């Protein structure tokens, strides 16, 4: 789940609606026995570590010059990338302008 701007602050009512939609979305994937794991990644207490000419620099938050930040991830059991895409289409994050979902395979162990 990629958010275009993580610094936007939503109202409590808006947060509650998103929360319910997200839970229903994950519930739907789980009801099809396709859910593995997942978590949201809160923006609070986030840090960025970068190497600069003066050494390693730590800054607050993943924001600033980075355009997109990761808001969370979910691992599903999909038979194909198409199926995974269908799951992704249902994610409420996509209601936010500029947000996107990125679908990736988990490397086999």
């Amino acid at each position, binding site marked *: 789940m990629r958010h275009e701007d993580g610094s936007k602050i939503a109202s409590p009512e808006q947060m509650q609606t998103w929360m*319910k939609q997200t*839970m*229903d979305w*994950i*519930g*739907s994937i*789980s*009801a*099809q*026995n396709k*859910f593995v794991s997942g978590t949201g990644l809160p923006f609070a207490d986030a840090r960025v570590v970068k190497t600069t000419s003066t050494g390693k620099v730590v800054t607050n938050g993943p924001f600033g010059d980075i355009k997109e930040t990761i808001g969370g991830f979910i691992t599903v059991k999909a038979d194909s990338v198409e199926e995974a895409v269908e799951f992704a289409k249902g994610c409420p994050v996509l209601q936010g302008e500029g947000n996107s979902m990125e679908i990736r395979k988990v490397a086999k162990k």
Partner: protein
Amino acid sequence: MNQQEIIPHLFRTEFRKITTVLCKSFGNAFNGIEIAEDIASETFLSAIETWTYKGIPENPTAWLYAVAKNKAKNYITRNQLSTNKIATELKQSSPTTHEIEIDLSEKNITDSQLQMLFAVCHPTISPEAQIGLALRILCGFGIDEIANALLSNKETINKRLFRAKEKLRLENVKIEFPGEAEIDNRLETVLTTLYLLFSEGYYSESNDTVVREDLCMEAMRLTYLLIENDQTNQPNVNALLALMCFQSSRFEARKNSNGEMILYDDQDETLWNDELISKGAYFLHKAAHGNKLSKYHLEASIAYWYTIKEDTKEKWESILQLYNQLLQLEYSPVAALNRTYALSKANGKAQAIIEAEKLQLTSNHFYFTLLGELYKGINDVKAKENFTKALSIAKTQADKQTILKKLDRF
């Protein structure tokens, strides 16, 4: 109570205690289980014989314990004599006799039952075998009662129990409390078995209401045994007992006098047992500790909401979210179907139909019953089609009757 009533009653309550304590006295493992069962049975035979002539003693339980102790001591002496005799002849050594203490105090009975519960619910034997052994050793069920309760026959049950005991002997499973490090894992297996035992009673197709209620009561009694002990009085155990209380509160209302199922919506809620509902609430409250949310917490919370008959937005939204969480923790087709039903109540039928179609549980008649329910009033032709499909794959008479009634309503 007269003699005809008191002996079966005492058999149900005391047989398991005597068997468990004796088995433990005979070496802490399953080597002596058959002998323990035999002595316990013989004790009851003596009671039938003696009490018929002399009347019921003042303290029948104490009488049984005294007789059982004597029989056990006789057995030990006889056994030691013969083994010692052989030993003496072989080694010319002096025989050693050690007195075995048979402690039938309340404390030792409770401890032994708890240790036996852990031993019987051992991961080396199958859940079916665990349930069978628990019913036999810890609930004092006869073989035909077990067969009746588990919809099987005597021969199968006998074989199953025999193999299970053999396996426990072979693995040298001790009748003891598990160590600190493994208690959580072992407790998990015990809870699964108690949960299955309860479900066996609750969902059994057996028409024998007494047997079904007995299974549920026994499962609850054994769960309570865990709650009474500090080490096993854990949040998930309390949550499981809460679940059992909530479920069994509807026992009276679930079947009519012909033994036919009455669906939740059609149940007369004045038949729901308020005492069990408040007990459930008490244990669910006690379960709200620690940082581990078990599936029993979620299922008990769902069962709690079902004790409120009135349809409210809050009720169905809560049930939906609990099922969402439950399914993430552990998938099951039943939970997936129930979740979809809750979804229809919380978010509307249109969304629920789309979600239901994704489940594709096409070998499950409940799947088609759910689709039928969802299409009802939206597309009655499709509703009927789905109920008819459900009818064609339903296996039990009770399920078929329920579906037929739904079809009749069109």
